């Protein structure tokens, strides 16, 4: 009884291994329901392939087609679009969150821009940038940049005022306050923001590749649809999910490594 109460405590804690086991059970349930539905015969195979067929397709794709190349080009596009966003969003978000005139100038513009649907820009991007790599990176950039700036500026605004004022009374200059206090203080939250926006970058990768590409996971999914290769669509979707999951875990690892004071126990 004692263990059960500890288990279900509001905001309680679990050991790392228990947490992992429960997480794996979650995945196992998904797999089980999927297998059951596929085996039940309620759906035609062509609409719902079973796990084994998907696995077989994965092996075929890996050995007889260029799966690794597709993954590589997709990861490259996401990373490039994401880094390009970050390169501008970090300094701009830092300035918007600390200097009122810059906030007044940029924030309404960005609030407006983030409601412009990135997907609707695809034809424009094709006209302006063409259909090569730049076009895909541009679409990912449009999809992530505006959200990223706003979220980073919000992270920056949450830095406690007394941390800034303490630096001022020690004689810190404005640039020293930005680099030595505000950025350092906001960094853990910014890394969390990047983890979340990385997920959106993957969403827009698929958009970019569905529309204007001849390689990559998103393109492969689109082509598979034309040939009614449902199992291949499944492989593509699951792989994107898996890669996203791995990147998420990498961000968490980065968080634990870079900000040890937040993970003391």
């Amino acid at each position: 009884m004692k263990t059960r109460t500890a288990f279900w405590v509001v905001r309680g804690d679990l050991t790392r291994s228990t947490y992992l086991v429960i997480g794996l059970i979650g995945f196992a349930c998904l797999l089980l329901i999927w297998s059951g539905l596929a085996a039940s015969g309620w759906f035609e195979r062509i609409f719902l392939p079973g796990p084994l067929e998907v696995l077989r397709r994965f092996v075929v794709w890996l050995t007889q087609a260029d799966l690794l190349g597709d993954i590589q080009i997709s990861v490259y596009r996401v990373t490039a679009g994401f880094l390009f966003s970050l390169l501008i969003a970090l300094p701009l978000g830092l300035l918007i969150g600390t200097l009122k005139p810059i906030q007044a100038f940029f924030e309404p513009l960005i609030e407006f821009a983030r409601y412009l649907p990135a997907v609707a820009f695809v034809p424009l991007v094709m006209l302006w940038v063409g259909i090569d790599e730049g076009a895909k990176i541009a679409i990912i950039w449009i999809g992530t940049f505006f959200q990223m700036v706003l979220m980073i500026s919000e992270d920056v605004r949450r830095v406690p005022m007394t941390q800034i004022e303490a630096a001022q009374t020690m004689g810190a200059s404005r640039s020293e306050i930005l680099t030595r206090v505000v950025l350092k203080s906001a960094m853990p939250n910014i890394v969390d923001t990047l983890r979340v926006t990385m997920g959106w970058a993957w969403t827009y990768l698929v958009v970019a590749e569905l529309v204007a590409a001849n390689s990559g996971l998103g393109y492969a999914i689109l082509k598979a649809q034309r040939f009614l290769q449902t199992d291949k669509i499944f492989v593509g979707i699951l792989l994107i999910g898996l890669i996203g999951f791995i990147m998420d875990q990498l961000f968490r690892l980065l968080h634990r490594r870079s900000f040890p004071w937040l993970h003391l126990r």
Partner: protein
Amino acid sequence: MAASPVMPLCHKISLQGLGKVFGAGAKQTAVLEDVSLEVAENEFVTVVGASGCGKSTLLRIIAGLETLTSGAVLLNGQPISGPGPERGMVFQDYSLYPWLSVMENVRFCRQLKIHRERSNSAREVHAAIGRSYALLELMGLLERKDAYPNQLSGGMRQRVAIARALMPKPQVLLMDEPFGALDAQTREVMHDLILHLFNRERSTILFVTHDVEEAIYLGHRVVVMAPHPGRIDSIHVVPLPAARHADMKLTPEFLALKKTILQRIHTTSGVYTDQDVLQRLTEIESFTH
């Protein structure tokens, strides 16, 4: 040290007809009105008053964190402009840098250009390192120098904050209810620590608090402020020897001054403060015994 309050040798801080107005137009409210005060070098002045009397705003203006609407703040006879390292400040809460260790927090000012330019010879750098160790030793935190702030208790954190504020050797130390968030026992320890520190560092301290007992125990003079608009009501010289001891809190002089100050706060603010209630309780108690 002399057995009486330190006589002003020269004015370290001089507030001249200081006024502060928040808002504009019809919503204007005067937070401070015509505040004039002289603080001598090596003097410990405490400021008390009910909430809303502008005592924190006053301190923040001297620190340069708030602008003033009228009047002037002089430091060594020169008007101040903005915050500066000659006026150190200790805040009530959350001012430590959680990403830096205790020692790194104390040495934070050494990262700043203004201090590096001023003293960057090998000897001065060496002296600064020595000072950081000495301050932590004084604060009893030497063995916790590699800990992060969130591994420390509230009292320890505030000691780090004080050491950090003292590190650049400010001419004036401004303290804004620094012990307000601490429990009573820790607070008493901090009182004796700050007095020890004051005598060692020979600094000038302006200390804002809502605790009358704290104000009398620490200060050479106690400034009582009144609200609406914030102004100085009265200034009381503390009739206690410079070397304070906890037993002095029970002397007739101490209690008489405490009563006077509480009465001033009570009549000017028209609000029962916690101290009023406590005072009544002690009176009832002494009555029944």
